[in-house]
């Protein structure tokens, strides 16, 4: 299939992006890496009237690490972030999860913020943001705002972004000293969307587990210093709370089992990394 017709604007200023979005509302789509939008256009799941390209704006192409945070601009491609020499030191969880986002060939074009905008329930990048308590920075003609990742994702492929807003950056906390991280994913093939993916963050306050691919969005739960069968019970309750569904790839029951097993494995690994 071929896309339906649309106008194309290669934005040269940020204001141009805001104008196109404000003036066209739901008929406008941002194009970043195009790795999700192009399939949607070709299958005519999306039929925008205008597509605005944000990949020629130098101010969106920066990775800024300072004061305990990492700010990743909307123009930063997944491969560029993976190639950032400080990544595994500053944010090891993201470094562990990124290689699971599609294939090298799609990471060369796909962006971090594009994945956040699309909000696929199986996607790794939203999972990492939720696990770490990251923030999404949105901008429009009306101004700028920041919103916490766990309330930004509102359901299957839906977010708190308004039609006129651009995701301008993703903001992550840098690794605090004495924290431990772990990531695991289960899928049919490496590079496929996850059937389930788990990320754990262990700090002195406790351990957080976040899960993608099971509920309609990445979902997290804080586990106190539980161990042994108490941890198994807590994981079991969490797995049920996720309200898993059967689909073509796996049954709900299978997904719950993945949460119990991978959840336990990443929690233990994150705690070990911390020690």
């Amino acid at each position, binding site marked *: 299939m071929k896309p339906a017709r649309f106008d*194309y*604007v290669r934005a040269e200023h940020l204001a141009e992006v805001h104008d196109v979005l404000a003036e066209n509302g739901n008929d406008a789509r941002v194009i970043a890496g195009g790795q999700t939008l192009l399939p949607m256009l070709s299958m005519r799941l999306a039929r925008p009237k205008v597509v605005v390209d944000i990949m020629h704006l130098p101010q969106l192409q920066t990775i800024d690490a300072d004061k305990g945070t990492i700010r990743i601009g909307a123009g930063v491609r997944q491969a560029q972030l993976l190639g950032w020499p400080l990544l595994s030191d500053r944010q090891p969880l993201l470094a562990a999860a990124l290689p699971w986002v599609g294939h*090298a*060939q799609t990471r060369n074009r796909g962006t971090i913020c594009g994945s956040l905008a699309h909000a696929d329930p199986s996607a790794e990048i939203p999972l990492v943001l939720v696990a770490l308590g990251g923030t999404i920075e949105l901008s429009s003609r009306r101004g700028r705002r920041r919103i916490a990742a766990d309330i930004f994702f509102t359901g299957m492929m839906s977010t708190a972004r308004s039609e006129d807003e651009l995701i301008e950056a993703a903001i992550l906390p840098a690794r605090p000293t004495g924290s431990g991280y772990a990531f695991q994913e289960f899928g049919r093939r490496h590079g496929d969307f996850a059937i389930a993916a788990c990320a754990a963050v262990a700090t002195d306050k406790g351990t957080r587990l976040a899960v993608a691919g099971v509920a309609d969005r990445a979902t997290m739960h804080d586990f106190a210093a539980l161990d042994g069968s108490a941890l198994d019970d807590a994981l079991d309750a969490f797995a049920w709370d996720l309200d898993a569904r059967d689909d073509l790839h796996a049954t709900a029951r299978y997904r719950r089992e993945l949460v119990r097993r991978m959840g336990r494995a990443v929690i233990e690994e994150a705690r070990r990394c911390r020690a």
Partner: protein
Amino acid sequence: MPRLNATQRHRVRLTVNGRQVEADAEPRMLLTDFLRHELGLTGTHVGCEHGVCGACTIDIDGVPARACLTLAVQADGGTIRTVESLAPEPGRLSILQQAFRRHHALQCGFCTAGILMSLDCYLRDRPEPTEAELREFLGGHLCRCTGYTPILKAALEAATMLHKKRPEEQLHA
């Protein structure tokens, strides 16, 4: 940039295989169709047209990427290499292509152009890949004929041969 109107064709200029080329495209035209239909470069194949199979993979601005997930107008001003650029001269194959031939790394050949372009880019950046790295990298391609083992063997052999050569002679020697 002015808004490119949906119903009109617009001039797209880019460097393809070292040559400056230009042709017209509607904003919705995929780069695969632009290469094949407007420029006549039919070496780039189209399988799934939604990013999954890898047949359309080409070198876009120095990295392997899906031509079917790129609009021609997005590529305007960019630099592209396609499978047509690999052979150093008519009647001679590149080291990687020769390795594919020796190892029967293709049968129908539908997937081959994409895999060659992916590997050609990859082996520049990583002259000594491990088998595990190559396997993961080739995961971005589907081949319905070979079962992948001959492709992996060809890639490993080509990597070794290319690595032995001096850098300036690499790949196109």
